[in-house]
């Protein structure tokens, strides 16, 4: 039984945010990933019970969204953007080199369970291309070498900090909890905006 009474109480508090409880299914699935790392059978059953749904209905939702994983991922889940712009700008090279470096392919995990790899679609940071997301934190303007260093650091327990994010990179489970709405108190860390975000502002101040 992976769910303590404290966990179950947290689930109730997530449900309480919504006018109708079925709306809580997505944060609850994020929460299940925060506890177990992926969407387990037990997680589906607990959610079904909490929301008075058939287990099939929970499965239908969990399999629709790509962030919900039906198999374990690494402590550091590395997403390389391979949508057109990032791919052209170097995402394809990055993906190939990090995949070769780790010896794993798309949706696979290193044997030590530390790093998993995913080809991801556009992550709304195109002015920072090529972009890599680790546990859904931004790693901007990446190169094949920077990503190799990144995953090596992650495997040694010393990953670099996100470009725009908290001072230290949090684990997959920790960040899943944030997406479930459980605050980690790190909102104040990191820059307000990256340099490209501020470019127009800077130019306008310069009168350009």
């Amino acid at each position, binding site marked *: 039984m992976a769910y303590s009474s404290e966990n179950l109480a947290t689930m109730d508090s997530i449900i309480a945010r919504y006018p109708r409880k079925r709306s809580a299914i997505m944060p609850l699935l994020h929460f299940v990933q925060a506890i177990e790392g992926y969407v387990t059978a037990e997680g589906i059953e607990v959610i079904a019970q909490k929301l008075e749904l058939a287990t099939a209905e929970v499965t239908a939702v969990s399999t629709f*969204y790509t962030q*919900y994983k039906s198999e374990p991922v690494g402590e550091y889940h590395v997403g390389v953007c391979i949508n057109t712009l990032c791919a052209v700008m170097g995402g394809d090279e990055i993906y190939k080199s990090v995949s070769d470096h780790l010896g794993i392919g798309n949706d696979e995990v290193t044997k030590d369970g530390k790093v998993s790899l995913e080809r991801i679609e556009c*992550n709304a940071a195109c*002015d920072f291309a090529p972009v890599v997301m680790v546990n859904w934190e931004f790693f901007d303007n990446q190169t094949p070498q920077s990503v190799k260093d990144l995953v090596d650091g992650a495997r040694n327990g010393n990953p670099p900090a996100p470009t725009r994010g908290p001072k230290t990179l949090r684990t997959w489970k920790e960040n899943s909890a944030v997406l479930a709405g459980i605050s980690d108190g790190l909102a104040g860390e990191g820059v307000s*905006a990256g340099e490209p975000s501020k470019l127009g502002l800077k130019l306008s101040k310069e009168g350009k």
Partner: protein
Amino acid sequence: MSKLKPVLSAHWDEADSFTLEGYRRNGGYAAVKKALDMEPDAVIQLIKDSGLRGRGGAGFPTGMKWGFIPQNDGKDHYLVVNADESEPGTCKDMPLLMANPHSLIEGIIIGSYAIRANYAFIYLRGEVVHVYRRVQKAIEDAYAAGLLGKNINGKGFDLELVLHAGAGAYICGEETALLDSLEGFRGQPRLRPPFPAIAGLYARPTVVNNVESIASVPAIVANGVEWFQAMGTEKSKGFTLYSLSGHVKNPGQFEAPLGITLRELLEMAGGIREGHTLKFWTPGGSSTPMFTQEHLDVPLDYEGVGAAGSMLGTKALQIFDETTCVVRAVLRWTEFYKHESCGKCTPCREGTWWLVQALKELEAGRGTSADLDKLLDIVDNIAGRSFCALADGAASPIVSSMKYFREEYQRHLDLGSCPFDPIASTLFAGARA
């Protein structure tokens, strides 16, 4: 005089721009005070008068959308903010929420008040944890400051605001799919009618607005209709965020009055990267038909882009230089649409499956010119035949690239392979060699 007009981005260079303190220091939450002293209908009228149009892609007049909500019907109303920013190339809402989340919250309070909603939601795409943190903290601080919750500003208006993380589904940017997702279902588009204004979230009257649209509201309320109307073009009023990415020297966000041209924006971005030339670009994300060199002076407003055969979309200007293989670019976008097709309707689900296979063959140089005609005919059986606009978006890059670059497709077939070196188009092409 700068052609730019930073409003939403005016303070992104301040280290605490995302905090309540930082926002208030720059005049934040004054608009709420003003709006709550007005009648709700007057707020709707003000937004109607301003000419603000949806910044999420379709450009529907925001005030009119609000006005569709049946008033005094005794039902709960909802305001839902679409922060599912996922259209390839689109990267404006995420930096906005990271650096200035309170502008959205202030807009939500005003919008909810106007449409008589006491519950609002922000549906944020799930793949941006730090943005989630910033918005969540901003909501907490707004509650603590009495700007959310019961009796806001002592004016007797109640509003609950819930931040909801998506989980990786582009289709949830479609407003009815978003509502199904928010209700706890698979994010598949709903049959319309009924439209969300009549039966949206929980079958209640609902407004779904883009982040930038709602975040623009406080500035309009604070500065007035005339101020807003003075910017932009005849039917495209105000300021907006243009996002330049790709093969430009300095990519980034440029907030400017509607109607600026790519030529002007490129100039500010330092031009195409050194030693290269513009080949093709998207005016508003991958779903908007691509443009070329010949469109550099098209005014980037709703009408101008439309007249030139595309759509303003999300103003996501993805710039590609001559090193880029257009077939490869289109294939990759098509793979995206296949990945994101919800599966509900036949043409999108099966069509994107087929198109990816067809384009892979073409990219590898296998086929004849008859296969190019076949490709266009398959697209013709998909575009305008599907349940929602996703498949139309999938058709756009194919049709527009075939319009401007059919000979490049043909060159693949003549050569029996792709004539481009993918390394040449990378950012680190020089560094890596």
